[in-house]
């Protein structure tokens, strides 16, 4: 069986090896991975936490046509001990709250800014203490209790159950979080890479994604 090199968004760290354990994975922020592919990194498949980056690579002729294979939602997490006593997203406005979010350009960072804007909470950005380079960094710093709160994907929160508590975000404020996957054109295993993409859309992979909390592609 061909071993593929899959470049995948950090939020897929737990679920992708469950779906296809034999591949090689490089998990990082989607924009870091896209930059590496632009620099000629030897990836066979690129799975991004948005559609924008694979579409950009597609326009540059670096990947084949991307397809959406799953969706996600944003959620606010706080450490289990909840030191800043945050019970609603609106508590993020309180001075002194240590809010950890993704950097601009990192998908979760961009989604976070959309959520805050949709909630009329742009001023909460002044409470940001760090801008992380991928979503798992946000998760780690909140789970460790160093930050008071952070925005991650629903599926990330599920991987550290017991260490964090979640605060929901109303449905109408949610951004559209679509994950797109594309075959990298320079891949030496094009057939196997296309097979991997088809497999991701198939029932077995989809049920594993669903079990991890991801949503069906629309």
């Amino acid at each position, binding site marked *: 069986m061909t071993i593929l090199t899959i470049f995948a968004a950090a939020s897929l760290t737990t679920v992708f090896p469950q779906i296809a354990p034999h591949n090689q994975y490089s998990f990082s922020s989607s924009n870091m991975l896209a930059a590496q592919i632009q620099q000629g990194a030897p990836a066979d498949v690129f799975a991004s936490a948005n559609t924008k980056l694979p579409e950009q690579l597609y326009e540059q002729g670096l990947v084949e046509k991307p397809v959406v294979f799953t969706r996600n939602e944003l959620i606010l997490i706080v450490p289990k001990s909840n030191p800043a006593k945050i019970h609603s997203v609106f508590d993020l406005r309180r001075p002194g709250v240590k809010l950890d979010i993704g950097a*601009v350009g990192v998908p979760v960072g961009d989604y976070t800014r959309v959520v805050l804007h949709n909630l009329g909470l742009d001023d909460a950005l002044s409470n940001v203490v760090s801008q992380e380079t991928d979503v798992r960094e946000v998760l780690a710093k909140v789970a460790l209790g160093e*930050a008071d709160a952070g925005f991650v994907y629903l599926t990330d929160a599920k991987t550290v159950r017991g260490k964090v508590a979640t605060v929901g975000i109303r449905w109408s404020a949610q951004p559209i979080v679509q994950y797109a996957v594309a075959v990298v054109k320079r891949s030496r295993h094009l057939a196997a890479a296309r097979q991997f993409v088809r497999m991701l859309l198939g029932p077995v992979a989809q049920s594993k994604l669903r079990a991890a909390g991801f949503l069906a592609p629309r």
Partner: protein
Amino acid sequence: MIRKSALWLAALGALAFLAFPIVAIFARLSFHNLSAGVVGDALVVSLKTTFAAQALVLAFGTPTAYLLATHRFRGRSLVVTLVELPIVLPPAVAGIGLLAAFGRTGLLQTGLPFTQAAVVVAVAFVSGPLYVRQAIAAFEAVDETLVAASRTLGAGPVKTFFRVVLPLARGGLGAGEALAFARGLGEFGATIMFAGSLRGVTQTLPLAVYQEFDVNFNEALALGGLLVLISAALLVTLKWLTSSSTSVFRFAPSTSS
């Protein structure tokens, strides 16, 4: 003859390999890619934290090194090894260690993480040992007969330290400090883990390079070029200090083996 040309070929290969990435940065960058905002903020954070950290390193490292250089006691080599350990520690391990010690949920439970002070702590932790190590060697190289002469001539220990020991060790101390400064300026791993990355607060130049790499490669290149220039200036300073230190030592008559 064949052996000699093989030698030259190997040397040329090594030189080209080491110089090429540096040349490539400058070949591809144009400094007008530098958007003043990110660069200026990162430069200010880098300079502020590096100078603060090095002030701490000098203030605490110098007496520590002097003590270790002039005293022999049980467990001394263990202490010296402990002091040197952060030099060989992977920066990520340093970051985890600092969080475990000073994090909000760490042993001391401080509010340091995400503050500019946390950058200073991270930089001092990884760069300080370089200075202390070099300073121990510099103090050990000071001729004891000169120290003894100063004391017999009536100078107290404090006056002897400042008028005799410090001037004699100056070159070595300067070289150690320049090394520590350069290492501190390039600090990345421990900083991003312990202090996070926030523009204008904790985002130093190396952190800005990393963040810009996946947003704007040209800007990352320009930042890289800037760091190369600063580092090169430091290296030249270091070389100048080391050469002046040998001239200092040359005049010191040595009777000890």
